């Protein structure tokens, strides 16, 4: 028996070695640069399918067929609603850049199309890391991140170790920028921006009806702890009173207790940052309990289009997703029109930020003139350009001085209510 066991073991180990040596063909969805079909590389200038070769003696040897970008996005799981927006932003931008001729790489003396290798991490940070490990071995020029702080927090360390630039939006975790990472860039409002802007908006409400009693529903995550504390500090700074700060575990299903506590404390300003499923559960249960604060900020969950399914319970809720088509930056109109054509509604809040990441990366590659990881990283750090998310530069820590727009769900749409100069509608207060 032992003899045979060993033989089986030998066979299995042979399988391991064979499988390891066979390279990687699985686990990915490679979309094309300009057509959306699979595994097709299209040259920048003609649109026809051909192998790109070095033009007029480019010094860098034979050019690759495309510039490969690795993206890890939650297409399934709790962050799927946000992930779909991120995916759309990346895809639109890649296709737009390729239709315009691709990205000129001086090293090869030719414009190359972008190729997006987008994979689903199922909203699981642990899958994010393993997928990023795989992508790291596959000649990508940079990583593009997904949606939600947990997946970004997991992914950035891998990017740092692999010394490949990582660009991400839909993450507000400031602590991640305090690790000393050199390869992580995020042109997205961070917790300190979010904490302040909501009180700046509140200060615009006429004093006689302005609410003052703040309640915080804080999930037990690193971002929850960070933003909860910042909200409390900002409330004090702006002269508001925090009467409730309750924590809950992500994935909880019953929020009755904290809702009733908020009601008992007469909370007028309810601040929360739930995952989409938690946010839906909180507001659905509020609807069932017949109570809702007059002012509600749901930083993350309300940016998912299906929020409208909540009906009245979700009406009037504010969200902070970092971008709105009404901001009016160059390129928004075309992108927004495409979104309307495909989805039947203006671009969702995370689409713009995601789109801008591809613009930043393409410009950095062109500026670097090479696909070398370090050169591309340095070029991203030196970014100074206009994108659909506005003018972008990066601070030393990888954050970007960027406007934090606040939006409100009104009549099934998402209206921009802050900053006032770009607002599409005035804040509806109290919430319907």
């Amino acid at each position: 028996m032992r003899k045979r066991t060993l033989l089986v073991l030998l066979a299995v180990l042979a399988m391991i070695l064979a499988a390891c040596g066979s390279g990687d063909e699985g686990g990915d969805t490679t979309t094309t640069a300009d057509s959306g079909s699979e595994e097709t590389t299209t040259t920048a200038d003609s649109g026809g399918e051909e192998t790109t070769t070095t033009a007029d003696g480019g010094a860098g040897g034979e050019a690759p067929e495309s510039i490969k970008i690795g993206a890890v996005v939650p297409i399934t799981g709790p962050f799927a609603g946000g992930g779909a927006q991120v995916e759309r932003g990346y895809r639109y931008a890649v296709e737009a850049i390729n239709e315009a001729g691709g990205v000129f790489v001086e090293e090869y003396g030719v414009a190359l199309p972008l190729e997006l290798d987008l994979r689903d991490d199922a909203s699981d940070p642990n899958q994010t890391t393993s997928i990023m490990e795989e992508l790291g071995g596959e000649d990508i020029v940079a990583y593009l991140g997904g949606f939600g702080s947990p997946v970004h927090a997991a992914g950035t360390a891998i990017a740092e170790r692999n010394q490949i630039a990582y660009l991400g939006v839909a993450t507000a975790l400031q602590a991640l920028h305090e690790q000393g990472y050199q390869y992580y860039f995020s042109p997205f409002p961070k917790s300190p921006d979010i904490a302040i802007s909501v009180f700046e908006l509140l200060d615009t409400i006429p004093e006689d009806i302005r609410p003052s009693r703040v309640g915080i529903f804080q999930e037990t995550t690193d971002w929850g702890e960070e933003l909860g504390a910042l909200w409390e500090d900002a409330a004090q700074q702006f002269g508001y009173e925090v009467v409730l700060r309750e924590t809950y575990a992500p994935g909880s299903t019953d929020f009755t207790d904290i809702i009733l506590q908020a009601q008992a404390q007469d909370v007028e300003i309810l601040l929360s940052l739930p995952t989409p499923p938690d946010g839906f559960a909180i507001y659905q249960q509020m609807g069932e309990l017949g109570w809702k604060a007059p002012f509600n900020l749901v930083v993350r969950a309300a940016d998912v289009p299906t929020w409208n399914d909540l009906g009245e319970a979700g009406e009037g809720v504010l969200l902070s997703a970092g971008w709105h088509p009404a901001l009016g930056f160059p390129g928004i109109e075309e992108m927004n029109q495409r979104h309307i054509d495909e989805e039947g509604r203006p671009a969702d809040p995370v689409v713009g930020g995601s789109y801008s990441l591809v613009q930043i990366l393409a410009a950095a590659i062109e500026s670097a003139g090479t696909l070398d990881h370090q050169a591309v990283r340095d070029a991203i750090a030196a970014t100074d350009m206009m994108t659909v998310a506005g003018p972008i530069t990066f601070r030393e820590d990888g954050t970007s001085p960027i406007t934090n727009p606040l939006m409100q769900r009104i009549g099934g749409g998402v209206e921009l209510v802050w900053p006032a100069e770009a607002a599409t509608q005035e804040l509806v207060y109290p919430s319907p």
Partner: protein
Amino acid sequence: MPSVVRWTIVLLLLAGVVVLGLVTDDQRILTIAIQVFMLSALASSWNILGGFAGQISLGHAVFFGLGALVTREMWLGGTSLVLSVTVAVVSTALVSAILGVPLLRFRGIYFAIGTLAVGVAVFLTIGNIRPGISSLPVDALREYTFTGPYYFTLAVLVVTVVVSIWLKQSRLGLGMMAVRDDEEAAGATGVGPLQHKLSAFVISAALAALAGASFAYFSVSYYPNFPFSVVWTFEAITVVFIGGLGTIAGPLVGSAFFVILRDTLPSGIQELQVVLFGVLFILVVLLLPGGLVEGGQRLLAALSRKGPAPPAQQRETAEKEEGKRL
């Protein structure tokens, strides 16, 4: 096969995996190998409790997680890796002894449910008290190579397999198997059921902690509650059943099969991997109760046409003979 030849093959295999870490720096190859070693070690540790002592624990990830948590905290805090791992293993063994006394008073499905409840409670608690991600410091990230984790995880696997082999042949291990086969009969013959089950529980937990330590050493970035996830328990159980319950080679074969299949599934099927492995698990339990090891033995017997009867057939024959005697 003569013992010398058998051990030569084992040593050649071991030499092969030792050399593999020296001759390649391919991230993908090393990652797959590390995952196979780690899951093999975890599954082998579960096999001691489930396969040798017959106690189906659904909370095994608690010990894997504790090993990872203690190792990571101490190691990133500046303690040497060896001391961190030692403390992790010893403290996990103590915790398991404390948990084991009440839990092992349950039997069968009640024990399984009890361990599952403990596992879920610990997972949620760790998630609440340690919500932040655990990442290696920037300097460590820049210096990180796969070689260290590769050999560390391989060493953990070797230790786990050696302990399993020793246990299977020892008086203690035979006592565990006696308790597994018939608790009352074992008790009547002087083999203390609780002592033997508790011994299996503690040894199994300590080895799971060792596997958890390798996870902590290998992983660049993860949320501290992740190693406590019940997914680790179910993966360990799945690979033990797929490979062969109660055997030494089963967890190793099952882990290699599981990890390689999972990592090479085409993208369209990868999302269905849980379903796929669930179906596979059911098929193995129904059609191949001895797992892939037994399947391989049957195949070899069929090919050679002169080998001994496969274990299932042997058991059948033995049962018939026993029935006749009775």
